[in-house]
């Protein structure tokens, strides 16, 4: 099968869908290629197993290599990670943009006002607003209480939702389409204007003839591109696809960055009702400048909660049974580390080791978050670090900060991924130029977070969408 389009977009997550939405206003013949399935809302399940199997890459069990593996969570379905994220919309922090300007020379290419204006437009289109107290539930309310009692800066999370009922199911697919994820917003917009969506279709390679990308070979056939091919397959898959397509750069797959983080659990005497309320409705920014750690609530479903609790047998069951009286907070860290994505003997390979500065920051963040849990009324705190007591009392929190520097002792996961085809104003320092075009090609663009020169320290969904929109504006110009 060969079909011809003006533009072929690879990936249907935040970046690919935002690009497709902007592209259909330029030319109607747009194809969007998605490796995963299209899962209609009525097929979303409140059970973790079928959700992980259908919506996540590798059933949510993708790991980095080495002795201290980190879970790398990615959506793999129509809409990508926007289907399984918690709808958090944060603008690019100005201090991060200043790094892009000063260290990577991108100030002129990516003016802050341009990114910010695009972000504002997207916020409006996707009905972004602060999480109302009516859907906070106990978990978010406790963090709000801790913020008030400690004086640490915190706020209700701004999310792209309409009519959230607080079902705490963001991470297995919103059952009522309240979350304005891509499969209910930008993708239908694009499809109504002529875009074709190819699901269950893996992009094998981009066909390059000289400097021109002429199409994409997928498992469903060849999709020819008259004008351009846009790659938005994620910071893990984009560099691997470019490599398979013959793109060569010493930076391709390198500079892989993220926000590795972990959870702490507060055990309360009162009912928290963890399974009710906005999945992630409250956040603390007040620790970021000191520790590079952001603290967020997370309503974990029972399966995830159980799997993260320590102990076996009677002890494990006792912690499981306390589900409804537990609060779960997560701490994504703006890591200094840079890793590498490649294709090894066993397939996809993600190398990522924490930087020596990371664990002290994480431990300080964990300690402070644990203190906040106690301020909110916790009786004990579970901090899943090997070597610590399973349940910590308030007078034992010093143990967290004096903990081990062995990264394998920490149960880490990350879901915000960046940098593997990074943009640079200097040809020798990046894979794509300031026009988002892969160097050495005329019309092959990378529009996802692979181009970000650094991680952000905040949730990247909105910045990814805004950058994809900027990329299409550049392309149109």
């Amino acid at each position: 099968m060969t079909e011809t389009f003006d533009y072929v977009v690879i990936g249907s997550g935040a970046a690919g869908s935002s690009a497709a939405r902007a592209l259909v206003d330029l030319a109607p013949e747009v194809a969007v290629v998605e490796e995963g399935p299209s899962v209609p809302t009525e097929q979303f399940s409140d059970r973790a197993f079928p959700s992980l199997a259908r919506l996540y890459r590798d059933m949510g069990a993708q790991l980095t290599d080495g002795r201290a593996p980190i879970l790398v969570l990615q959506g793999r379905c129509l809409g990508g990670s926007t289907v399984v994220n918690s709808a958090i919309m944060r603008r690019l922090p100005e201090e991060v943009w200043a790094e892009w300007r000063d260290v990577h020379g991108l100030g002129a290419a990516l003016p802050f006002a341009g990114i910010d204006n695009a972000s504002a437009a997207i916020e409006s289109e996707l009905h972004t607003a602060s999480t109302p107290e009516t859907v906070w539930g106990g978990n978010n309310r406790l963090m709000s209480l801790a913020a008030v009692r400690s004086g640490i800066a915190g706020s209700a999370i701004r999310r792209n939702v309409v009519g959230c009922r607080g079902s705490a199911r963001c991470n297995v697919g919103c059952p009522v389409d309240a979350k304005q994820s891509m499969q209910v917003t930008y993708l239908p917009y694009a499809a109504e204007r002529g875009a074709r969506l190819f699901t269950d279709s893996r992009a094998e390679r981009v066909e390059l003839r000289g400097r021109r990308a002429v199409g994409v070979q997928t498992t469903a056939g060849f999709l020819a591109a008259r004008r351009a091919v846009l790659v938005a397959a994620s910071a893990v898959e984009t560099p691997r696809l470019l490599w398979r397509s013959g793109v060569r750069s010493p930076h391709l797959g390198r500079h892989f960055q993220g926000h590795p983080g972990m959870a702490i659990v507060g055990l309360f005497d009162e009912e928290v009702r963890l399974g009710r309320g906005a999945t992630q409705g409250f956040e603390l920014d007040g620790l970021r400048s000191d520790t590079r750690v952001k603290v967020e609530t997370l309503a974990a479903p029972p399966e995830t909660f159980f799997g993260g609790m320590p102990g076996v047998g009677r002890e494990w069951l006792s912690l499981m049974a306390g589900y409804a009286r537990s609060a779960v907070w997560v701490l994504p860290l703006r890591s200094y580390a840079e890793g590498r994505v490649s294709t090894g003997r066993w397939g996809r390979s993600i190398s990522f080791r924490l930087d020596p500065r990371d664990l002290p920051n994480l431990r300080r963040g964990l300690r402070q978050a644990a203190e906040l849990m106690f301020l909110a009324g916790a009786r004990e705190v579970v901090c899943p670090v090997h070597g610590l007591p399973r349940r910590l009392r308030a007078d034992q929190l010093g143990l967290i900060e004096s903990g081990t520097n062995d990264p394998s002792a920490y149960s880490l996961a990350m879901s915000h991924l960046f940098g593997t085809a990074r943009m640079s104003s200097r040809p020798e320092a990046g894979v794509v130029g300031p026009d988002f075009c892969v160097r050495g090609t005329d019309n092959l663009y990378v529009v996802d977070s692979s181009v970000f020169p650094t991680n952000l320290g905040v949730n990247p969904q909105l910045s990814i969408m805004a950058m994809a929109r900027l990329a299409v504006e550049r392309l149109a110009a």
Partner: protein
Amino acid sequence: MRLSRNDAAVLDALLPAGANSVLTLGIAGSGFEAFLIEFHRQSPPRLWRAFRLALWTAGWIGPLLVRRMPPIGRLSNIDRARALAAMEDSPVPELRQLVRVLKTVVSLHYGGLPAVRQAIGYP
């Protein structure tokens, strides 16, 4: 799929029946074998292999950590639990990670059971 006697002993030590007043249901008799058929069908091969390795290691290496002769099926219930706890607390990260794999897979089944969800107050 059918679990061996040792596999069943590992899983039973992980989640014994009647050990908690709220969560009285254990893994035995909860339909885990039927779940495993579906899990095997849908999980990435690497995850499935890790789960099988974790079961084997818990059954044959776990007892050695508490100075008992393997396999785990020959041990008393108390020693079985001690063997798994020793694996989870081991200074060897690979052993701890295998316990994590076991608990993750077991949790995917156990946390989805209506009786369990009702007992813990999940809406």
